[in-house]
């Protein structure tokens, strides 16, 4: 009986593992344009996807996109369901307690988005008494908790950034805080143009907002060095800039 069970699991393992097991790249399972979003056919496209393809080609790895719920993405990494987090995750000391990060591969400021007719400013004074929306488990949530929660009327958390954008468009929120590039895509869309505008960038706080976005890896994973080398190589030979040019008019690497 025990042999039967072990044989069944072995068969499963053979069935599920390729020769050189492909790397499971965990991506948040919601649209986050322009970095990652599913198109109508279910394929994932975006700057981060192109970047990942370049890195995997550089490091000679076989990579497979594995959509995972954002609020469970770190536990999914630590429990082995995915191997790498590539989901615009900011490098913060809080997260470093649990996982390792590669070098940063982009760094963009955080923006506060408000309704078109709002006079709010992107600081605690301007957001007093307002309803602010953020995505759960993000550096923006931590920032809002620290700076705005004491003065805001309510801080609502959403599973995905898209839900927060929708609620701002619907008028249920007064402000939303998220990455400036991702919000800009929303502001450029029909819905965004009609409803909302940017109130400006939030004052930086490197401790909370982190120092750029990097790959997330399990602690002590040797893949870290491979990925860092690949990032350096791509930046050096111009592939990074070529990819960036097709999406943005500015450099996302930041300083």
């Amino acid at each position, binding site marked *: 009986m025990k042999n039967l069970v072990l044989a069944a699991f072995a068969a499963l393992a053979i069935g599920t593992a390729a020769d050189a097991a492909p790397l499971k790249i965990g991506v948040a399972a919601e649209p986050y344009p322009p970095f990652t979003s599913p198109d109508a056919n279910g394929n994932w496209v975006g700057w981060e996807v192109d970047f990942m393809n370049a890195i995997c080609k550089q490091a000679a790895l076989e990579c497979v996109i594995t959509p995972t719920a954002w*609020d469970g993405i*770190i*536990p999914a990494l*630590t*429990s082995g369901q995915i191997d790498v987090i590539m989901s615009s995750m900011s490098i913060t000391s809080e*997260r470093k*307690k*649990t996982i390792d990060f590669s070098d940063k591969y982009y760094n963009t400021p955080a923006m506060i988005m408000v309704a078109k007719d709002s006079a709010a400013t992107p600081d605690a004074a301007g957001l007093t008494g307002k*309803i602010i929306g953020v995505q*759960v*488990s993000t550096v923006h949530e931590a920032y809002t908790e620290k700076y705005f929660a004491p003065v805001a009327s309510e801080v*609502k*958390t*959403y*599973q995905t950034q898209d*839900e927060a954008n*929708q*609620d701002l*468009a*619907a*008028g*249920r929120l007064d402000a939303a805080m998220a990455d400036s590039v991702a919000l800009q895509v929303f502001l450029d869309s029909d*819905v965004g143009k*009609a*409803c909302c505008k940017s109130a400006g960038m939030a004052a930086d706080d490197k401790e909370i907002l982190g120092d750029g976005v990097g790959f997330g890896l399990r602690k002590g994973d040797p893949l870290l060095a491979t990925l860092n080398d690949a990032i350096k190589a791509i930046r050096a030979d111009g592939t990074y800039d070529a990819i960036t040019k097709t999406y943005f008019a500015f450099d996302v690497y930041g300083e």
Partner: protein
Amino acid sequence: MRKSLLQPHRIVLMAIAVLLVGYCVLKLNWSWLAEPKYQVLIVQGIWRSIWLTVVTMAIGMVLAIPIGLAQAAGPWWLAIPARVFCTVIRGTPLLMQLWLVYYGVGSLFPSIPWIKDSALWPILRQAWPYAVLALSLSVAGYEGEVMRGAFRGVPHGQLEAAKAMGMPRLAIFRRVWLPQALQRVLPTIGGETVLQLKSTPLASTITIMEIYGVVGKIRSNTLIIYEPMLLLALIYICMTGVIVLLFRWFESRIPSRVA
């Protein structure tokens, strides 16, 4: 009950359970429970879960009575819409109904410019009316079916006797049909209340911080995987137990022998 608990295999099982619980309490990471801000959130979350269950059950039952009645005794132009309503509610997932109500209706707001100036706006902005609406409609759909069976199950002789005694239709309904139907379904309602409690976690997907949402927030802040969820399961087991005991008490107070 004493005797059955003291049987040898029960004692062994209870000892194992105590050991397991002791292990969990001592070895797992419960440091987050000590933080006052989480304690406040947990209490608020439990209150919201209870409140959602009670309010939506109440509203849902009030809606279920006419829906069940329409199907049991109504003319076809009432019975068929009621039937369609119940079929749609029971045939589609509650999560979809909830998202449709919240995000679907929300997406209509920008196209209705006067809504932001109306008196209802502060209420329409918040998430709880939508959760209450979706959950109440869900209760109405499921309980409508139950009430239909209950209304049909009341012995027709009683209704005929009441009619023969000259009672007006409303009085028959109020004094004979409805009380007897409710009496028949009381055991089922207890089970349905437990099911409704178990549906409330879905409200956290539209920003309502009931206890599931609170535990999700704790998990994402502390990155601890299992311990908050174990506490969550324990809380729900306790709440379910309370509901079951409450309904047992109800049933003991109300005569359950049907004529």
